[in-house]
């Protein structure tokens, strides 16, 4: 069913339309939340929060003016993720330690030493990301993992492109500080 019709039906209070909008967008929002939180439980919380917030405010979504419901929802997801991390600041520092265990086991036939280096490297990346502010972390994620352009990030976060560049530069600097050359060489 067409997204516009679904949104119109959802705005009229149709629960089936809401369910359909959830089905169409759930994976994209969960992927964003999981990349951001690096933890399944937190990502599920962000997913639920995003859809509850978006569906409660669906009457504010203007079909003619906004680009699409999916991108509007994605923006809600971004804000929910940042807010979630801000609220759970105490847990932020622990995020990196959970991730090492969550990295998938080595595939059959792969070099165990190399696999260990890969996991150690990923652990360092996540620890560096955990040290960033929620906004810097989101900007780095959108740029590096989601491959958004700087202009698109500025639109999503409703800030200037200069501000995005500054946050991106600080995020990259923090990640660089978390690395030592041997770790890079192990991977190459």
């Amino acid at each position, binding site marked *: 069913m067409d997204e516009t019709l679904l949104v119109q039906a959802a705005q009229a209070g149709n*629960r089936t339309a*809401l*369910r359909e909008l*959830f089905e169409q967008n*759930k*994976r994209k929002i*969960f*992927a964003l939340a*999981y*990349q951001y939180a*690096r933890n*399944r439980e937190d*990502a*599920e919380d962000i*997913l*639920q929060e995003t*859809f*509850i917030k978006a*569906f*409660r405010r669906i009457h504010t979504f203007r079909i003619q003016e906004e680009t699409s419901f999916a991108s509007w929802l994605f923006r809600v997801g971004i804000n929910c993720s940042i807010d979630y991390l801000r609220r759970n600041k105490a847990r932020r520092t622990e995020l990196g330690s959970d991730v090492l265990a*969550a*990295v*998938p086991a080595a595939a059959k036939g792969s070099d165990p030493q190399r696999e260990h280096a*890969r996991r150690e*490297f*990923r652990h360092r*990346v*996540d620890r560096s990301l955990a040290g960033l502010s929620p906004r810097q972390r989101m900007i780095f994620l959108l*740029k*590096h*993992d989601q491959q958004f*352009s*700087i202009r698109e990030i500025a639109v999503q976060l409703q800030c200037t492109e200069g501000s995005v*560049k*500054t946050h*991106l*530069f600080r995020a*990259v600097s923090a*990640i*660089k500080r978390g*690395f030592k050359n041997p770790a*890079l060489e192990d*991977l*190459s």
Partner: protein
Amino acid sequence: MTCPRFKKDMVVNIYGELNGKRRRRLEGHLARCASCREEFETTRKVLASLEKAPAESPPEIDWERNWNTIEAGLEPAGRRSGFLSALPRWWVYAPLALAVLFILGLAVGRYWWPWRPTTLVTAKLRTISPATEQALLSRYFEDVKPILLDYAHDGTKPGSEGLLPTDRVMVRSLLVQNVLLKRALARKNPTLADLLDDLGMILTEIANLQAQDTTTPESLKNVINERRVLSRMRRLEKI
């Protein structure tokens, strides 16, 4: 040490978003500055290495459970049950609002309302001179004396025409004056305090007589005489 003005541009250029003049300027600078060139290479290497260890893809989750939580979260918060649900929402808060207003009213009346009649009158009485004090007392005794004389001698004598009809409003007014005088002057003069107590008691009995109380004019006469109220009044008038 890298040149600060090119730091941000280096990162933006690695992501392929530096265009035109700024890009050419950065490239020109990198060709000349070894330190910035090294910094640029390190940054590029770090970002490239992130590609070699990508974050794991999101795990599969129980979508149905998540949808149920979302659906529950869409229900209006604090849905009421039973007879309360039939009432409009404001009705629930109305008693609370009334209680708050009542407490506020009490607080304003007690602590901030400027008009306090009793306090003002007693305050004025406390500040008056001894001569005025004496004049006030004399005037009060002048008003009380005829009533007391009527009860102590004339009205209760056998063969007399009986007690004069007592004005209830006047008796009440005398009682109020009694209270005010006690508050203002009794602390300084215990003898006066005793006398005013007795007068208060007698005036109250007279007021009650009109309400067909058990006290008789004869018993009031005894009280006035036994406690020598009139002579005490005379003594205090002379001071």
